[in-house]
């Protein structure tokens, strides 16, 4: 089937598919072709079972209790943290903070920086391809503090305009950008951009919600100061996100949510915060799902992130070819299959994306339509919405062909 682009052996897709119970489901009597992975991914049975196993065998609150269940739960919970820490190569598990999703992670990062390091007139830089979760917090804090808020352009092909970046990054205090666009599939050269930003003295926040699921990540190599991502977009359960932050930045920062577990001592008049990472984890954590997230990462590591990346590049190559053959289609994002994610936004003539998605749905094909939480980018592309098909490790070329056939069917029905 798929020819591997590199030298690593290709994925055993049939084996992988068989790990995902939902892929056996029929939708409207058709085989489910799930191409909404940029929104959320499906879960392998290993992850689902780890949650069941937790609730059936050792469900307990963590950290503070000394009984057996609590001990087992605490161990599993903290070993998920180590798993995550290794997965992105953080310097220490202390730098791994569990949140409820990538959005909360980005908000925590924004608070960390804004409370201690930002003042009126400072410059915050983002890009036109940001997800609302990495755009609105910076836009609003800029308003509140009175910062300059600059937005780096993307070009025709959906690639970051480097010249514009070089100009806007000058004297910036904060650079927040996405590692990979959830609309265009564009992968930004995070290491290079971070280096330039650091030269200007900026703190760098990398939105890894779309990259962590699809690329090998090494935060120390990338050099970013914060890195945010979500479990549910990488085979893990909903309800868990993660913020990596450099230890000294997290140490200096005020906590985000206040309450149980994030304190060391509470007195009538004052409170002492807990050590890292718990200072940022107030209240009862999402224990079951953090454990499930650890299991998801184990699964990804077993398959191999390098291989997943190559698999998706191979899919991209064919997808670009095949989609381009369809008449009246407008395809957004980079035209080269290498160094882009397998996320394809498109429009079919004047047909509304919701109609595209609905008719594809009736063929069993799940894609997304809308603004994809990237309205600033939509404005730039000059559209209200797009259709978006996004692939993952359990997709194959048959899914690409099914998509193309489905789009032709849409054209038939609506023209």
């Amino acid at each position, binding site marked *: 089937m798929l020819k591997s682009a590199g030298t690593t052996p290709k994925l055993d897709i049939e084996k992988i598919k068989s790990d995902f119970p939902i892929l056996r489901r029929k939708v409207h009597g058709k085989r489910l072709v799930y191409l909404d992975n940029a929104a959320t991914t499906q879960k392998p049975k290993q992850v689902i079972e780890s949650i069941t196993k937790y609730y059936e065998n050792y469900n307990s609150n963590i950290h503070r209790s000394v009984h057996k269940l609590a001990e087992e739960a605490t161990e599993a919970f903290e070993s998920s943290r180590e798993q995550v820490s290794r997965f992105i190569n953080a310097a220490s598990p202390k730098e791994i903070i569990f949140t409820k999703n990538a959005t909360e992670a980005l908000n925590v990062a924004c608070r960390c920086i804004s409370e201690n390091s930002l003042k009126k007139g400072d410059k915050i830089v983002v890009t036109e391809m940001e997800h609302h979760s990495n755009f609105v917090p910076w836009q609003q804090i800029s308003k509140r503090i009175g910062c300059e808020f600059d937005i780096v352009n993307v070009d025709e092909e959906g690639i970051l305009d480097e010249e514009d970046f070089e100009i806007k990054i000058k004297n910036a205090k904060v650079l927040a950008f996405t590692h990979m666009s959830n609309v265009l599939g564009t992968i930004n050269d995070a290491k290079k951009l971070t280096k330039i930003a650091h030269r200007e003295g900026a703190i760098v926040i990398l939105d890894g919600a779309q990259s962590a699921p699809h690329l090998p990540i090494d935060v120390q190599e990338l050099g970013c100061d914060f890195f945010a991502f979500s479990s549910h977009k990488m085979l893990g359960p909903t309800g868990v996100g993660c913020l990596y932050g450099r230890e000294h930045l997290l140490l200096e920062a005020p906590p985000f949510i206040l309450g149980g577990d994030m304190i060391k001592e509470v007195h009538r008049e004052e409170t002492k915060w807990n050590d890292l990472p718990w200072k940022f984890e107030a209240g009862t954590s999402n224990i079951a799902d953090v454990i499930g997230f650890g299991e998801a990462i184990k699964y990804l590591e077993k398959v191999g992130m390098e291989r997943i990346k190559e698999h998706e590049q191979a899919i991209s190559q064919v997808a670009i070819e095949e989609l381009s053959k369809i008449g009246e289609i407008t395809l957004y994002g980079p035209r080269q299959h290498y160094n882009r994610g397998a996320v394809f936004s498109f429009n079919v003539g004047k047909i*509304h994306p919701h109609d595209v998605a609905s008719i594809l749905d009736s063929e069993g094909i799940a894609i997304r339509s809308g603004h994809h939480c990237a309205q600033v980018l939509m404005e730039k592309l000059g559209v209200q919405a797009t259709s978006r098909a996004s692939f993952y490790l359990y997709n194959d070329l048959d899914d690409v062909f099914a998509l193309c056939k489905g789009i032709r069917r849409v054209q038939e029905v*609506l023209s």
Partner: protein
Amino acid sequence: MSSDLYKEIILDYYKNPRNKGSLDSPDSSARDSNPLCGDVVEMQLKFLDGKVSDVRFNGDGCAISQASASMLTEMIKGKSIEEVRNLDKNTLLENLGSPNLGAVRIKCALLSLKVMKTALYQYLGESLATRNHHQEEEEKMQTE
């Protein structure tokens, strides 16, 4: 046919919209959008002798929102204000031939109804009533 949502009737109104355009001097008009998908619908109404004497819609959006708007214009034209006021979502959905649109697409189908009612209540000067009605309508849509 494979796509249950896209009944012949919806496709017909989508491809050959009735009453699309604008009126010279409408007695009332309203416009709203569906934030989730960007559908836009505008409605213009003219009244005579307690009846809707003329109506036009304009808009941009998915087949369902536009077909629904077009069909709605036909449903109310010539009807008494009382009748139009009592027109409910089920009647519209049944006319569309899609009583079970699902939680998401139903908002597309009902946008035109919401806009038309806004224009109507505006004409009647019942701004508060409109607001309450709106809220109820939205709630119903959300909890569908």
